[in-house]
């Protein structure tokens, strides 16, 4: 459903130009949850912004369900890392969630209904009338997820969605993502720099190299489901995959190639 062909992007021009993406090719199938992992500053965010239509890549193209992404597509939602700058502090939680639904042409009553439903799915049914800043960080990120869910996107992009919360909350949110994904059969592309997280959450882990980013690894995650924070993480396949991804991220092909 998502097809990225030879995508490249350069910021600026001349001697100060920064080549962030150097020809990325990626296909994501309907219903898949793909984690994109790479070292910080490798161009992950540039990739996400190109998919979302927030920037116009300088080369290559992105197609979503066969349609080339030029502007921000109407069947795509994004959960940003920094929830405090993504939710609008002047609106209640319910208004934040229902605002994007105007684009769907729903009337006020239906919008509110959908918003409350989505909030219930993330376990925040009691917070509708509150303001985002009255909630903890983890709860605010749940609101962002609810906003994306209510929007019913074909593709959900998540940009380091759990990077700003504590470890316990992070695990809760990972499990929440897995659960809601099952409810709506969404296609999800999750960008992270956390190797464990990519293996735990993903069906597939795609590893990006340093800038200009290219794909250096594409691994299928074959773990017995349903996933569980304790047992999955001690499963030999998990431990093995995690090491494999870790090597790819650090640019070491195999243990034998390791040099101090």
């Amino acid at each position, binding site marked *: 459903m998502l097809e990225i062909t030879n995508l490249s992007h350069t910021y600026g021009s001349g001697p100060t130009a920064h080549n962030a993406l150097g020809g990325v090719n990626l296909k994501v199938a309907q219903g898949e949850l793909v984690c994109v992992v790479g070292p910080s500053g490798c161009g992950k965010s540039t990739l996400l912004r190109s998919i*979302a*239509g*927030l920037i116009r890549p300088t080369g290559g193209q992105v197609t979503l369900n066969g349609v080339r992404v030029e502007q*921000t597509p*109407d069947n*795509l*939602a*994004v959960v*940003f890392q*920094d929830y*405090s*700058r*993504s939710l*609008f*502090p*002047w*609106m209640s939680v319910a208004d934040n969630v229902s*605002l*994007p639904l*105007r*684009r769907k042409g729903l009337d006020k009553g239906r919008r509110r209904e959908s918003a409350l439903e989505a909030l219930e799915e993330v376990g925040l049914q009691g917070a509708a009338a509150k*303001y985002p*800043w*009255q909630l903890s960080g983890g709860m605010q990120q749940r609101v962002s997820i609810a*906003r994306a869910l209510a*929007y019913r996107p074909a593709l959900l992009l998540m940009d380091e969605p759990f990077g700003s919360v504590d470890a316990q909350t992070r695990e809760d949110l990972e499990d929440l993502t897995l659960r809601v994904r099952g409810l709506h059969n969404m296609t999800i592309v999750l960008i992270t720099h956390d190797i464990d997280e990519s293996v735990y959450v993903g069906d597939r882990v795609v590893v990006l190299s340093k800038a200009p980013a290219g794909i250096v690894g594409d691994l299928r995650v074959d773990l017995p489901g349903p996933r569980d924070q304790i047992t999955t993480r001690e499963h030999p396949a998990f431990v093995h995959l995690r090491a494999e991804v870790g090597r790819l991220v650090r640019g070491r092909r195999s243990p034998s190639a390791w040099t101090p």
Partner: protein
Amino acid sequence: MSGAVRVVNRLWPVVAVVALWELLTRYLEMLSFPPPSQIAASAYTMWLTGPAERLWLTEAALENIPTSVGRLLTGWVLAGVAGIALGVALGRSPLLFRLVDPLVQFARAIPPPMLLALFLALFAIGPRMQINFIAFGIVWPVLINACDGARHVDRQHLDTARVFGLTGRERLFRVILPSAMPKIFAGLRVSLSLALILMVLSELIGSTDGIGFQLLEAQRSYDFPGVWATIVVLGVLGYALNSAFLAAERRVLSWHRSAKQTT
């Protein structure tokens, strides 16, 4: 601490200053510095010796104060609307900003009192001249703050609006304006106090009624307690306007204050 004690704690310096002033002016006996008791008496006869059915307000009070406040507020609202509209437009359009900003910087650098002659020439003496003069003189703080607020909307808020396909109208009214609102309010507050100054100024020169006119009349007839009484009324008016504005701001920007405290 009980409410009464708090009030006493806050107000005793005022009482002390007034008492000192009374003693000093009585001792010095200068014609242009009447003691506060005389000022109070003058203010009382000037404003509060009317008939009971009009709440004891005199003709002068009922005519001059509402007239002046009306001009001030009309000018302020005009300046607010124009300043917000133009400021947000400038803040969101780099091209417009480049073209218009030098003009804005030039126009706002002119001291408003200097423009009084121009406004007297453009409009005849009367409320139209006064309102336009007030509005033009006080529009700049709102305009510049609105422009600044609209320019510095968080990029991620704008990205979010784009991703979720908000229309231009929704972006303006639900993202850009609320985001710029704290700065706009700061500008409106400065403008409100400027409006009081320009209101008096315009009435001192181009008017036949209003508080400023009354001040001029008292001065012309060497009624110094009357001059002082009018000044006191202007002070009270400024204080009341500012308090009302702050109360409104607290309501409208409650999200802003609380969000700042919790994050």
